[in-house]
């Protein structure tokens, strides 16, 4: 317990110098609470646990939001969607909606939401909807069609009724990173690119106990043991796999949902069809794009999801019913996420499985102590899920500590709600045009440098999640090369005298509050930082990002480039036709013919990303307890 004590009481917990050590036995850490999974749920759990004073470690096998959280639709639910079908969920949503607007203000755009009745929608649903909103306490006001069309001119003019609810759009990348930073500030340690490969178990039949986890650092390929008083499984659609490691059966029904993004905003308000929840019936404005979604299909594997041309066509056809002509808009990307749906003894279709959260106490359920599983739910309810989980954790650990997350804002909220013109405004006000490396999303060189230095970065895809690199219409055509060049330039060489080893200094890791702000990123730095290494505040920061640590194999620029191109291809493949196909051909011209990037040294080397786009698992086999 000595280490656990230290963990709880220092701002920056002691660190194992993994890369320095030649280990005969696996190094180990101890903590009170170990959280598995760096999605919205797990990060929220770690935040809550740390705020309540528990020594906490979170492990995520890739980057934060690698799972469903980074592949969702972007809707901060008002609850309107569930008022008829699942009123309990509706009540939870509206309560959390109000809280998150205070705690995660800058991660949310206050778009408002419409429920519209199209000619196809069933007769009495609108009236039932209105009544159910009143019952569940979801604020709802009917407005005239004319008024709705004035606010959203592209909306189908044949709609007959419109109801307004407090829906919003939420950036789950930023929200999760900000929550992680808040957790760190409260003393939690967050280990990304750390995969649980087994659970540590004690005791015999009938008296089993989970005492920790065997964790593999997927960058360095080293293994550590993390001992914990309580292990919380927040691994979403992977929760069944983790539970299996403790010999416990948890049947997750992975329900795949497909989403398609247009290259610009067709609407500024969330548009829902006013009917029983179904497929392709919500259009959400998120940053520079609009996203139409989604579907629900039971799949076998939460990884390597395939999107068929038919699914995309279906989304576009449904989208046309909300905004006629949507199917002819330029489509920039399609992706899929899996709902971690769970229902005890359920064997039906994933669409009918419950959407509400599930907290499994394996002591009561399976006679295995020291182990909880939290799954199901929605992004909108992640904070509440975390609260319930840590309430139960307190019982297990025999302490009484109140939850404070509902009244504790995460860093960055003073920026106010997100608004679409935010970046452009800052770029113009501060004359930062010269530093733009991604013209589509207005990402500056300083934002890339700052994100890479202040946030653990392993791949360019991590930077995409941090600053929206490559998410616009050209899908990385121009910024990929620039980002690789920049990371390579700022990379610290082995012989750098000011190179700070991991854990030796107080890095401003997870400094994410202003990652999205061109103006803040440019403060105190010069664009020519690389000319005088160490001279600026920014480059004097110690670095913990493997992508710019030249001792780490993942800093190899050729692999960064290759992996991002491959990963990006996966996202654009389902939507390549017309102008976007032409764009893709231009990217081929640039990366193949002009750069000859497919004939660079090290082309065949493995990296932590390879498994993803190569298909198949690509990751090490999961061994139960090693």
């Amino acid at each position, binding site marked *: 317990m000595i280490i656990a004590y230290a963990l709880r009481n220092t701002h920056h917990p002691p660190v194992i110098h993994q890369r320095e050590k030649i280990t005969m036995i696996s190094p180990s850490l101890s903590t009170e609470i170990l959280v598995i999974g760096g999605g919205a749920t797990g990060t929220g759990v770690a935040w809550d646990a740390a705020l309540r004073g528990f020594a906490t470690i979170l492990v995520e096998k890739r980057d934060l939001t690698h799972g469903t959280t980074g592949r969702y639709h972007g809707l901060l639910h008002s609850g309107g969607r569930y008022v008829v079908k699942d009123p309990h969920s509706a009540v939870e949503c509206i309560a959390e909606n109000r809280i998150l607007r205070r705690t995660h203000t800058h991660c949310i755009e206050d778009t408002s939401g419409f429920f519209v009745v199209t000619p196809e929608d069933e007769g009495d649903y609108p009236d039932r909807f209105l009544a159910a909103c009143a019952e569940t306490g979801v604020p709802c006001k009917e407005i005239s069609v004319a008024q709705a069309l004035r606010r959203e001119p592209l909306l189908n003019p044949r709609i007959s009724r419109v109801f307004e609810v407090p829906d919003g759009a939420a950036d789950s990348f930023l929200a999760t990173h900000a929550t992680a930073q808040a957790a760190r500030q409260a003393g939690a340690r967050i280990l990304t690119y750390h995969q649980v490969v087994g659970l540590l178990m004690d005791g015999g039949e009938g008296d089993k106990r989970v005492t920790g986890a065997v964790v593999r650092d997927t960058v360095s390929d080293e293994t550590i043991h993390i001992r914990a008083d309580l292990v919380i499984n927040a691994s979403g659609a992977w929760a069944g796999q983790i539970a299996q490691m403790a010999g416990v059966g948890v049947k997750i029904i992975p329900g795949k949902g497909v989403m398609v993004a247009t290259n610009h905003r067709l609407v500024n308000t969330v548009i829902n069809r006013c009917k029983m929840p179904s497929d392709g019936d919500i259009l959400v404005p998120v940053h520079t794009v609009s996203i139409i979604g989604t579907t629900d299909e039971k799949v076998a594997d939460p990884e390597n999801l395939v999107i068929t041309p038919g699914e995309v066509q279906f989304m576009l056809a449904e989208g046309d019913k909300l905004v006629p002509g949507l199917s002819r808009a330029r489509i920039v990307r399609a992706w899929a996420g899996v709902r971690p749906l769970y229902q005890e003894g359920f064997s039906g279709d994933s669409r009918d499985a419950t959407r509400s959260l599930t907290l499994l106490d394996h002591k009561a359920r399976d006679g295995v102590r020291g182990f909880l599983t939290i799954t199901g739910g929605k992004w909108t309810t992640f904070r509440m899920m975390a609260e319930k989980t840590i309430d139960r954790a307190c019982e297990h650990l025999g302490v009484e500590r109140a939850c404070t997350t509902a009244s504790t804002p995460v860093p960055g909220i003073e920026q106010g709600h997100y608004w679409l013109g935010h970046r452009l405004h800052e770029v113009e006000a501060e004359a930062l045009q*010269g530093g733009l490396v991604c013209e589509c999303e207005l990402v500056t060189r300083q934002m890339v440098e700052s994100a890479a230095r202040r946030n653990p970065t392993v791949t360019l895809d991590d930077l995409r999640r941090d600053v929206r690199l490559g998410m616009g219409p050209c899908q990385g055509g121009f910024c990929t090369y620039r980002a690789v*060049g920049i990371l390579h330039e700022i990379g610290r060489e082995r012989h750098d005298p000011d190179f700070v080893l991991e854990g030796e200094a107080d890095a401003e890791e997870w400094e994410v509050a202003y990652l999205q702000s061109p103006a803040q990123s440019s403060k105190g730095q010069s664009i020519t930082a*690389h000319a005088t290494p160490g001279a600026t505040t920014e480059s004097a920061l110690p670095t913990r990002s493997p992508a710019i640590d030249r001792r780490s194999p993942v800093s190899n620029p050729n692999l960064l480039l290759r992996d991002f191109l491959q990963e990006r291809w996966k996202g654009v493949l389902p939507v390549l036709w*017309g102008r976007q196909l032409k764009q893709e051909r231009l990217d081929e011209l640039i990366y193949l013919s*002009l*750069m*000859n990037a497919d004939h660079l040294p090290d082309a065949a080397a493995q990296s932590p990303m390879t498994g993803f786009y190569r298909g198949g698992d690509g990751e090490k086999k999961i061994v139960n307890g090693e």
Partner: protein
Amino acid sequence: MTDLLIIGAGLAGLTAGWHAAKAGQRVKVIAKGMGVTHWHAGTIDVLGYTADGAGVSRLLEAIATLPAEHSYGLLGEERIASALSAFTTLTAEIGLPYAGAHNPGENLWLPSPVGAARPTFLAPLGQVAGDLSTSQPLLVVGIEGMRDFYPKLIAENLSKQGHTARHAFLPLSLFTPRQDVTTLQLAKLVEEPSRLAQLAEGLARLVKPGERVGLPAVLGFEDHPAVLARLQEVTGAPVFEIPTLPPSVPGIRLHSRLRRHLEQMGVRVEVGMEAIGFGTNGDRIAWVETETSSRPLKHRATNFLLATGGILGGGINSDHTGRAWEVVFDLPLTIPQARDGWFRPHFLDGGGQPVFRGGVSVNQHFQPIHPDRTPVYTNLWAAGGILSGADPIRERSVEGIAVATGTSIAYSVLRSQDNDG
């Protein structure tokens, strides 16, 4: 009356126009945009890799192994060789001479913007000194804050491939106080004598004896040859350009000089005109209609050359239902009419994406044909990126196919008129 109406102002269209005009034809070029030259290296890539991914060293030997339906297979070695040699003459004529490798008939291997060795057959003199077939040490000099060129990355990759290479930076303030300059603006700034002098002095301080110096391809626009000569003179070292991220200054130099040359020969080149319709007269095309700001315009001609490029050039369009079509004459295409068949799962798949291999099928005269191999129209020809049978980007033959087919068609058209007459 126009003898030859060329639709498309890329390298294929302009090369064909030059040959036809030289032979006394009345030629008109109409185009929506400028073609891919603006986005590429400004070199003439003829064939860099074979289907199995092997790098091509001796060009004609590799061409002989290509399948019969490949444009090069249809042309044969002799027509390809004479087209390339005519193109070299043309570049000298326009004051932007191109050259090939030291050993005739072999590919050059030039440093790319990431420091890979890119195979190409002819390059502007300003790039030739970068040939990686020789072992002279390289100094790659970048400009601080320039977002489209990364010398450290280039030098490191060249070193990894066994070359002696290092990098250095010059400050952007040497050229301009502004940060947001494009490659083309930089190229024009460099021509200004006092800036050029500063650049030359800056380089001279950096270069060590025995080195050659690679710079981003912004060494002047109109006066590029003079800029290059001046830098070599002051530094005493061979100086060469390495392409940047597009827009490509070497590509734009080539395109603009070619266009001007054609115009001086009396060829009208009208850009910003989109072909929107056509009329026929029996088995012949009678006219092509274009959209202009004021009114649709009908262009009549004896012969028509379709050089609109493929998917990249805009000559082929497609939609989400999996339909792909040739935009001017709706010619038969070899692209599968279902999206399932268009792609492979990996961007870098060695085999390339099937959708980009499809296009317009032609006979040995380069007339578009039906699946039964009969010509669709007797006075219509097709050149360059729109042709099926190859994936020019994968095999690095973008300009080679354009130049060789454009040249050859000009002569086929002439012959057909001789026959008619």
